[in-house]
């Protein structure tokens, strides 16, 4: 099976795992990206693995990305005014 895939220029699951993170970062060449995308379309396990890494990135971005303290202060000020019934 692996041999057939190789002969057809397709990637095996091991090949995809090797380049998956670079692919998700947009750091692979176009040909590799196309092959990975095609593999992910057909392979549930690799597609799930890809989802796990994408979820990690979203989670980090929601929870750990730096935020502007000025914006947060201004929202806190707004919230305090709402709390005092000054804005409705």
């Amino acid at each position, binding site marked *: 099976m692996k041999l057939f895939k190789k002969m057809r220029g397709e990637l095996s699951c091991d090949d995809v795992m090797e380049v998956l*993170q*670079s692919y998700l*970062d*947009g*750091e692979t060449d176009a040909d590799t990206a196309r092959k990975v995308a095609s593999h992910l379309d057909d392979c549930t396990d690799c597609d*799930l693995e890809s*989802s*796990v*890494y*994408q*979820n*990690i*990135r*979203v*989670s*980090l*971005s*929601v*929870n*750990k*990305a*730096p*935020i*502007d303290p000025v*914006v*947060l202060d*201004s*929202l*806190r000020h*707004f*919230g*305090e005014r*709402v*709390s*005092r*019934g000054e*804005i*409705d």
Partner: protein
Amino acid sequence: MTRPESEAEESDASAEAASAASTEAFNRYVLPELEVLYRTARSLTRNATDAEDLVQDTLLRAYRAIDRFDGRYPKAWLLTIMRNANINRARKKKPDLLDDPELTFERSVEFAETSGPEEIVTDPMFDASVIDAFDALSNDFRQVVELVDLNGLAYQEAADILGVPVGTVMSRLHRARRRIRDHLGEHGLDSEANLPRGSTMKDVVVGSAS
């Protein structure tokens, strides 16, 4: 027999008490979640200005509903409010494309539901596990994750800043993420059912509250 003045006084007093209770509940349950709300809004809207508007809208809606909130799971409650506010916002953004109100509604809902992977924002268990694993990374590893995943740099840009070969960035980054991924696996959070993305935010919030 009750005199009208005292009736009015009683009514004023009860309105004041209700308002004081709302203020107290709002300060206790809502304001401490402000940073989470803003982070979530930024992820939902992918735009700093829209994110601020969404948080403000959420705060107003929360204040109006605070007297009906039972005090359990404030974050889940607030994220549900934010999700609804965001869907409303998406509807308002696309009102003029079509005259048929039903079609307009459908298109807006579609817009709201397909605005990208960041739309599905948060699952507290998943997030907590990711954060634990991230915080446990060594400085070298954490640094590359910060540069690439949090600040959006390309591998080469991160390599230039750190003064290391691009292969080093790639190797550290991939190993760092692999550790986070393995940490999720050790806690059974790497299955389809546990991934926040792919389910709706409402489901995630309800799931986290049960």
